[in-house]
């Protein structure tokens, strides 16, 4: 009897144990001294700046690495009521397009300006994926200096990617569409015959960074995903990943995933630029906005341009500057290694990673080793260009960056991991899980000719249980790895704003000492500047009232204003007279159908106000500036429309008496 009981109990115990048996999931031990390696003590600085794309927020965020602390959100393509970007009269022109004022953008990728293939920290270029635009930010002020719209394009995903000396910023359209001078009122099903893909080459002035579209390439209708410049031996070439070579216009999920291989488009941009200069292109009539912020006048102006030079690739096949290289399968990233000899295509539906050799590509071109053509453009033989394939690296490769030791790091969305492999030997060295489903990753300087290495951040698309929950909508999640050793070591998890698609990491020393602290009031050429309190005044021109105002700790001049009427268009031109570090003033008006403005020392900014009622309306400084910040306020007296209340204004002894 006891024996039966014993066997029975053992069986029950075994079943119980079995039932709780689970296959071992992805485990990741955080390395022992991780806390020390990411802790930046009070008063110390992070080692690296990470400029991180904001995705659907439209902005660019700045993080300190290794602490993962957010330093700032930079307004670029979306209105920012906190600073008044896109609300002040000076910055509204930045968001003008050929479609009118667009208050939001989809910011995907970033590129720091380069010299000799290395990040030089002068400018940051950012793309807008919805209404196609490229922005240039000044890295001495961390502000948006210029935005140029891209014609003949729709969406602007494969952008901005720059050449080794920032000669060009290159932008590829995401959606192929009819060009602006073609009839667009056609059935969508005519996609394969009537739509085209535009790749734009924006020239950058080396002195001041000003952009202008030098020329565009008109290519067959595919989607452009990502691209990168060649380096060293491949200098002068640019590589673009394409997908939807099936030329589908509906249900791309299925229809653009049919072909076994899509293409990487290799373009000899130096040759294309020569052809454009030699007049081999044609002028397309279109409309696109070019917006420039002038630091001297603290004001942006917007102009509509009407011409762009287009080179039709299919008319210039014999010039030999464009070739297709087959690449499995709906490639996302096209990444060039620091030596410039190897380029990797990450096919997001592929189960292997092809690594191509530039020297083999050049030989294939020379030998005319084609496997056919695609809309007339030669398609090189896959095996003729291939260096080798990384076998079974993971599922759903998206993007690759490199360290300074010949290793590559690829993000895998579907298998949710980062894989480290050797570029030459194609051997997988290490894999680490990400939490969860990493999209892009960034190595410090990882897409340049001389990567800094040391840190890798994986920008993930799914957050779920990584942090304290915050309702149904969760912040995105980023993981910081130390890649200085053979194995990648997980150091930190941190949430991000918006949706980072890409980032550029640069050692802090390259930028931090170039920062502006104030704007020199003596160099302020704003049309409505007041360089001293004596220069302030209120002027009426019909229904328009211009108030020239100054802010300095802790009073506003003038702080009593009378004679405003209902129906007036009132402009507060506010100058911050401070010339000391970290002394912004803010300005807001009660009931204003507008945001506030934040004015930095030496700047002038204008807030528009249409009075909504008669009576006394207060205004005040909104940014805590001094011990007597609460005393920094004023009143406007609004009289009925058509009244004859005289304009009177002043502060203290000069305030209007009753």
């Amino acid at each position: 009897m006891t024996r039966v009981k014993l066997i029975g109990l053992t069986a029950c115990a075994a079943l119980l144990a079995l039932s709780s048996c689970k296959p071992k999931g992805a485990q990741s031990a955080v390395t022992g001294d991780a806390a020390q390696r990411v802790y930046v003590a009070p008063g110390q600085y992070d080692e690296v700046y990470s400029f991180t794309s904001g995705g659907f927020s439209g902005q660019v965020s700045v993080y300190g690495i290794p602490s993962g602390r957010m330093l700032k959100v930079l307004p670029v393509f979306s209105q920012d009521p906190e600073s008044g970007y896109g609300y002040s009269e000076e910055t509204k022109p930045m968001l003008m397009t050929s479609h009118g004022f667009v208050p939001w953008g989809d910011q995907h990728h970033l590129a720091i300006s380069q010299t000799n293939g290395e990040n030089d920290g002068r400018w940051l270029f950012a793309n807008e994926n919805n209404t196609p635009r490229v922005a240039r930010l000044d890295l001495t002020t961390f502000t948006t200096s210029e935005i140029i719209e891209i014609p003949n394009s729709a969406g602007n995903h494969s952008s901005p990617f720059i050449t080794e000396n920032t000669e060009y910023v290159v932008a590829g359209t995401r959606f192929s569409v009819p060009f602006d001078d073609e009839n667009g009122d056609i059935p969508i099903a005519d996609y394969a015959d009537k739509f085209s893909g535009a790749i734009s080459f924006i020239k950058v002035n080396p002195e001041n960074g000003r952009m202008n579209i030098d020329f565009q390439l008109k290519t067959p209708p595919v989607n452009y995903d990502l691209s990168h410049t060649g380096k060293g031996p491949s200098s002068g070439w640019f590589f673009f990943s394409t997908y939807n070579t099936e030329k589908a216009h509906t249900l791309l999920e299925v229809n653009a995933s049919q072909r076994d291989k899509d293409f990487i488009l290799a373009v000899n941009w130096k040759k294309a630029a020569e052809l454009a200069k030699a007049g081999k292109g044609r002028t397309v009539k279109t409309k696109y906005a070019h917006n420039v912020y002038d630091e001297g006048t603290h004001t942006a102006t917007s102009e509509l341009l009407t011409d762009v030079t287009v080179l039709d690739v299919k008319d210039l096949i014999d010039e030999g500057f464009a070739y297709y290289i087959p690449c499995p399968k709906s490639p996302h990233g096209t990444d060039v290694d620091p030596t410039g000899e190897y380029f990797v295509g990450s096919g997001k539906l592929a189960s292997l990673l092809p690594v191509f050799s530039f020297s083999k590509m050049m030989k294939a071109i020379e030998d005319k080793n084609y496997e056919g053509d695609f809309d007339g453009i030669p398609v090189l033989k896959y095996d003729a260009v291939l260096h080798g394939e990384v076998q079974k690296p993971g599922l759903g490769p998206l993007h690759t960056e490199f360290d300074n030791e010949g290793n590559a790091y690829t993000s895998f969305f579907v298998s949710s991991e980062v894989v480290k492999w050797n570029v030459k030997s194609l051997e997988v060295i290490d894999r680490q899980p990400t939490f969860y489903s990493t999209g892009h990753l960034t190595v410090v300087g990882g897409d340049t000719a001389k990567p800094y290495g040391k840190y890798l951040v994986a920008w993930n698309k799914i957050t779920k249980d990584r942090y304290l929950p915050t309702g149904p909508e969760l912040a995105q999640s980023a993981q910081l790895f130390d890649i200085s050793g053979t194995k990648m070591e997980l150091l930190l998890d941190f949430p991000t704003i918006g949706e980072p698609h890409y980032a550029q990491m640069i050692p802090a020393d390259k930028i931090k000492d170039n920062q502006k602290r104030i704007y020199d009031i003596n160099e302020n050429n704003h049309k409505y500047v007041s360089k001293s309190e004596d220069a302030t005044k209120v002027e009426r021109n019909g229904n328009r009232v211009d108030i020239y105002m100054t802010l300095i700790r802790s009073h506003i001049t003038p702080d009593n204003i009378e004679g405003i009427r209902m129906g007036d268009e009132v402009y507060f031109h506010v100058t911050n007279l401070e010339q000391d570090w970290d002394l912004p003033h803010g300005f807001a008006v009660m009931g204003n159908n507008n945001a506030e403005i934040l004015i930095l020392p030496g700047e002038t900014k204008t807030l528009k106000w249409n009075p909504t009622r008669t009576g006394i309306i207060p205004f005040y400084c909104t940014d805590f500036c001094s011990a007597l910040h609460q005393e920094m306020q004023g009143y406007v007296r609004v009289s009925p429309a058509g009244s004859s209340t005289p304009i009177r204004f002043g502060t203290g002894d000069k305030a209007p008496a009753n």
Partner: protein
Amino acid sequence: MNTAKNTSLKTLTRILSAIAGLAMFSTLVLPIWKIELTAPQYPEGLEMYIYASKLGGEVDIINGLNHYIGMHTIHEEDFAEFAVLPYVLGLLAVFGLLTALVNRKWFFYLWCAFFVAFVVALGLDFYFWLYNYGHNLDPTAPIQVPGMTYQPPLIGFKQLLNFGAFSIPASGGWVMAAVGTVMAVLVGYEIKSKK
């Protein structure tokens, strides 16, 4: 036998006087005095420099801060001293060079006396200005601490509300101190050598 009193200077005195005279020319361009201010919210510090003919450093920022406690703003134009100082310093420098040329003890002692008188006068003038600056406060000032005055130190450190003020010679002032020390030593040397 030496019947005449020795009225000329030792060679060392002549050489060093000439060098000191030349050095004094540098005080025309170098800052003579500085006041360094530190506060919890000013990790970068603030400095005001006093030159022979002008002010330097972050005078505007200091003026901006001081108005809360009723201290008057400092402006270069308000100082008559700046019109006069360069000439006096230039004269002292020339005097030094002349001492070497003229080669008479009385001339040398006169120069030393002039120098001492000048330093004392300058110090007194500065002290009285500092006294006025710290005591002559605007009665409508927003921040009023009963009984509190803000006279910066003539030399050395003093805490004034949240600011620490450190008053100290700048490079030009150190040159003058060095010149003064050399002169004092030479005086002793000349007196001793009479015996």
